[in-house]
């Protein structure tokens, strides 16, 4: 019989003990670690267009222009300037001449053309924003540093969308195309960008590590991060505990007041507070009885306890937002206080409803407790005026799928509308414009007067006129009580106290790391 040696066991124990007392920070000097609430199953910037994975687009890639700060402002980025033709159809962008890809090659107009064609061909990610405006083949390279976009129709928002034309290295991607897939399989696992950081390691099950790209065209200040690591940590509690322990230097800034309180009580975490552009509202199905009756909808908007929800449930951590356009966005109509919580008024409106009443269904997002809390608050008050509400909770993909189908859509759904581009159309147009029916317009609301203003605002190049049109349209939607608009979110960005230089922008949710550094 072979004698059992204790040595291997002692070796394992020693190895474990050697690192037992070593905090993660000590093991990764000057590496910023971010706990991300979503997984990075692909690195392709033209496939994914959600806020949870925006870090890929912001840190590995660049767009022609870039959104920075709060309120968001557009700054020239890969492009130095642009001109628009008098008819609003032709947009010409002059590109910088000193932009390098991570492989050292220079970026040219051909790369921009390839990138937009790829976006249109894949028909994913940001494609829904561009396909109504651009035909495939309508973008050309006038010279190596000039790109010309020929639009299908004049568009006032095209300028707001160009940050989402993330430019990929055309030659590199083409070399890795397979069976005409536009390099999709390859770009899911690799990076071909000009961004501030270049990929070092990637595991779709874990996340990625990226190194600073010293040759980035925008240059670097005296302080910066050498490495960034984005790890997938799906459990909120784990992200919170990890921040408090010092395992992570940053995580998502839209947590519940309880979690924010835990951060505030911690010695290691600082909270960066900003009013964001993320409107929480109840979407109402406007094209189904009895919600298609304005009196029923008015009964609904007067039956929600706005102050109670904001001050008691959310501990005053958000700001009341009376319409669908965020308060801090131009185009938000001034002087509207918002509907008041008044059950007598609600009852009076309900008495005018001609169609027979029936129980209504509220679809909430499983795992997003605020939606469930809001629905419960609503349910209790609706019962007081004689409306029974049934709450059905499901994961976001299920709720989202049902919302897109007019027949399967719930009667009401509480959810947030985030910022994809900083223009009132991102909220008002997409949620209530007829051109977006079945897409973003999941309230199935249609009003020719509203459409007239939204359509005009989409083509007008006169900023004053656009502001007026958006304000008018928002008032009309408000008067129609087409939704229950509750609050504009505040962003409470939790970051390690050792981190400085975070530039929050509602479009990037504080994940644009080129400005950050260790204090």
């Amino acid at each position, binding site marked *: 019989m072979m004698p059992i040696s204790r040595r291997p066991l002692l070796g394992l124990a020693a190895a474990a003990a050697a690192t037992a007392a070593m905090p993660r920070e000590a093991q990764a000097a000057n590496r910023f670690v971010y706990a991300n609430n979503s997984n990075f199953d692909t690195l392709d910037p033209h496939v994914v267009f959600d806020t949870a994975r925006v870090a890929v687009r912001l840190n590995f890639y660049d767009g022609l222009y870039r959104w920075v700060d709060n309120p968001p402002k557009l700054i020239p980025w890969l492009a130095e300037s642009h001109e628009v033709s008098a008819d609003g159809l032709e947009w010409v962008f002059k590109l910088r001449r000193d932009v390098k890809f991570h492989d050292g090659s220079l970026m040219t107009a051909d790369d921009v053309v390839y990138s937009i064609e790829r976006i249109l061909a894949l028909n994913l990610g940001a494609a829904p924003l561009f396909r109504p405006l651009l035909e495939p083949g309508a973008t050309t390279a006038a010279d190596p540093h000039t790109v010309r976009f020929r639009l299908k129709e004049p568009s006032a928002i095209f300028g707001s969308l160009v940050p989402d034309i993330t430019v990929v290295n055309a030659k590199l991607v083409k070399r890795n195309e397979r069976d005409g897939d536009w390099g999709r399989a390859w770009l899911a696992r690799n990076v071909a960008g000009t961004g501030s950081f270049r990929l070092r390691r990637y595991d779709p099950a*874990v996340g990625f590590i990226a190194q600073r790209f010293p040759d980035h065209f925008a240059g670097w200040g005296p302080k910066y991060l050498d490495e960034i690591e984005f790890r997938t940590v799906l459990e909120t509690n784990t992200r919170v505990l990890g921040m408090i322990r010092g395992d992570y230097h940053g995580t998502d800034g839209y947590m519940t007041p309880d979690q924010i309180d835990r951060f505030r009580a911690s010695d290691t975490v600082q909270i960066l507070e900003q009013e964001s552009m993320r409107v929480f509202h109840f979407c109402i199905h406007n094209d189904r009885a009895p919600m298609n009756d304005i009196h029923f909808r008015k009964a609904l908007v007067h039956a929600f306890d706005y102050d109670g929800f904001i001050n008691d449930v959310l501990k005053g951590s958000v700001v009341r937002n009376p319409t669908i356009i965020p308060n801090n966005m131009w185009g938000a109509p001034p002087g509207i206080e918002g509907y008041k919580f008044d059950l007598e008024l609600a009852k009076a409106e309900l008495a005018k409803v001609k169609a027979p009443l029936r129980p209504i269904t509220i679809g909430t997002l499983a795992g997003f407790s605020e939606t469930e809390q809001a629905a419960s608050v609503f349910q209790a008050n609706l019962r007081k005026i004689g409306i029974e509400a049934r709450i059905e909770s499901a994961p976001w993909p299920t709720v989202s799928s049902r919302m*897109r189908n007019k027949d399967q859509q719930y009667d009401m759904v509480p959810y947030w509308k985030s910022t994809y581009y900083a223009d009132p159309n991102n909220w008002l147009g997409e949620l209530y414009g007829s051109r977006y029916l079945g897409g973003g317009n999941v309230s199935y609301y249609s009003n020719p007067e509203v459409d007239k203003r939204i359509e005009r605002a989409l083509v007008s190049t006169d900023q004053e006129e656009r502001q007026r049109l958006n304000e008018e349209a928002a008032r009309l939607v408000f008067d129609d009580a087409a939704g229950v608009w509750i609050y504009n979110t505040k962003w409470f960005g939790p970051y390690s106290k050792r981190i400085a230089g975070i530039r929050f922008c509602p479009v990037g949710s504080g994940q644009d790391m080129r400005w950050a550094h260790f204090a």
Partner: protein
Amino acid sequence: MKRLELILSRLLWLVPTLIGLGVITFLISHVIPTDPVAILAGENATAEQIAALRRELGFDRPLPVQLLAYFQDLLRGDMGVSLFSQQPIAEELATRLPATLELTFAAVLLASAIGIPLGVVSALRRNSAIDHALRVVTVSGLAIPSFWLAIQLQYLFAMKVGIAPLNGRIDGFGPEPLTGMMILDSLLQADWESLGGALRHIALPAITLALPAAATIARFTRAGVLEVVTSNYVLYECAMGLPGALVTWKYVLRNALISTVTQIGLIFGVLLSGAVVVEAVFDWPGLGAFAVISIIQSDHRAVMGFTLWAGAIFVIVNLIVDVLHTLIDPRSTR
């Protein structure tokens, strides 16, 4: 001969089992009101764009046609491509397997190391205070939900005592992957720092999985030992004056462990097919975490791939257990 027949019949059963599993999973995936195409197309997509994408992906075809096409692909060894990552699902499963395999080995080893001695002690001290205490422990081990236990362990060892990490397999990305199993790769590359990190990270998830498994093993071991310890040959060996420890650990345990080995095999199969909750809580990048994400995203093909994998593993592990059973106890083939 009997053993060969057993293996062949089990392998033959694997085919209808997997077909049935595939059909059921496919139908369930398509009955629930989730539209992966709408999710893939994004929040801003219009109805026309979603419809175009659906046509492009072939999701507009009738369900039986889609199902048939899926099985045709399977016969060619193609499990399809993940809708979201665009990577072959077989590849996705293969890259996550080492993490689950490593965790499973650690948990089963730990569970056996705890469960077998506890079962033996419990049986030998039958109806004593120790036996009652161990019974309470084992019942508790079975009753405690794994997510609760995981969070408590995180709170105690990661937050309060501070000797274990909260989650993940290692800080950063660890050593260069050779086998994909962190501990083994660290050893092969003599990377002691990574080895220490990997051991620290595996401790809490392995304990979470091991405790309920240890409870099961202890109960089966106890029952087996009780059955054997009163048999004539044991009484004879005791009467012959053989030391008690020798009788117990050499003669009693071998015969008593037959049902325990079966249980260990089943536990191994269950864990290998994805410890979904524990992997999710500890962000363990294995098959269970892959299943959770695929379900959340309604990535039907990925869910199907995982389910078929889990089914196949379970059948194969059962087969191995049965073969082992015949080796330990030749009477079972008679």
